[in-house]
């Protein structure tokens, strides 16, 4: 359940950003990367509960999935969740859930067999938009 600490960190980061910019958060958007296999519903629920009593309580927020895009530096292919994560057993997926960069430890490029990957998007949970007033 390390999602709890991640969501707490997100709330703090957004609040801190607003403080530094001297504004109030009207809405913010969170993207949940496919690679780490977080439950979007869980992240949404945690946000809903943890914003209570914070500066973000009145702010609107949305939580959306972000497609995983991983580039294989050996052959140039762009790979996604279905090629890299879906074929893995649950215990290996869990390791990538904690540390998404370990996708190169557990998965190979289905085209060339390479493991020299760069994660271009959909890594983990991140704040993609903040609107202040």
């Amino acid at each position, binding site marked *: *359940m*390390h999602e709890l600490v991640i969501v707490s960190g997100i709330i703090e*980061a957004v609040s801190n950003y607003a403080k530094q910019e001297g504004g109030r958060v009207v809405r913010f958007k969170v993207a949940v990367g496919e690679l780490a296999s977080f439950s979007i519903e869980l992240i949404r629920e945690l946000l809903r509960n943890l914003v209570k009593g914070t500066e973000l309580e009145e702010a609107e927020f949305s939580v959306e999935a972000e497609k995983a895009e991983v580039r294989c530096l050996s052959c140039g292919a762009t790979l996604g969740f279905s090629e890299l994560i879906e074929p893995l057993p649950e215990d290996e997926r869990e390791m990538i859930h904690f540390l998404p960069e*370990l996708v190169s*430890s557990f998965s190979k490029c289905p085209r060339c067999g390479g*493991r020299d990957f760069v994660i271009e998007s959909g890594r983990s949970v991140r704040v993609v938009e903040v609107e202040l007033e």
Partner: protein
Amino acid sequence: MLKLSWSRLDYRSMLIPKRFAEIGYTLMVASGKGGVGKSLISASTALIEASRGVRAGLLDLDLHGPSSAAILGVTGVPAEGEDGLIPLEKMGVKVMSVEFFAEEKPVPVGGAGKRELIRELLALTDWGKLDLLVVDLPPGTGDEMLAAIELIPERRGCILVTTPSALSARVAFRAGRLLKDMKVDVLGVLENMSAFSMRGEEVKPFGEGAAEELSRRLQVQLLGRLPLDPEASLAADLGKPEKLLQTRFAEALSEILDRTLSLALG
């Protein structure tokens, strides 16, 4: 407070300073070349300090060749708690390593990916309160060292390990210079594999004098010399920390740590 060059909206930029606010002192163990015994020194330092009642942690940032957890015989997968990932524990030492997640698989992560991985480990590991966190760095001046310098903000220092070989000391100079340039407190040079006893005589297989020269060039202390001790090597190979603590190597390191860390650990 830590100044971060990466996104202000990144949850890790909030979590990492909080983790380190709970840690009294962070000791990085660095070297120029590999194979100088850095992981053995890192693991033994955490072990010796824990045996004295210090709340000690050991973080292995040698992402491509993690071994300090194996030296302590620690295996398993960290559990998830409400405050993050709970380090594994052995003889009072809390241990975190990428090895727990990747097991025996390779970790072919480069450049920016390494920084991401280190940020994640630092942000998610719930050390709780520690007096001392020992960070085992890989050899050289790559991303791991740069990330550690960037992310570990205050109350930090470094020990530079070399063998008596002139080549090892020459390469260690570069690492020492970087650390000093980046305002890391280099506590001194530690010479490992100095000598061993054979038929009552002291043998110095790698020569002598290079560590003195290195410390002179860096204008830091020569902290001491550690013996080439087959018993310590065997204890590390077997992952037997209780045996490691009883070796001549551990005894010599313990004396050096008494002098070196007493100020940092209060």
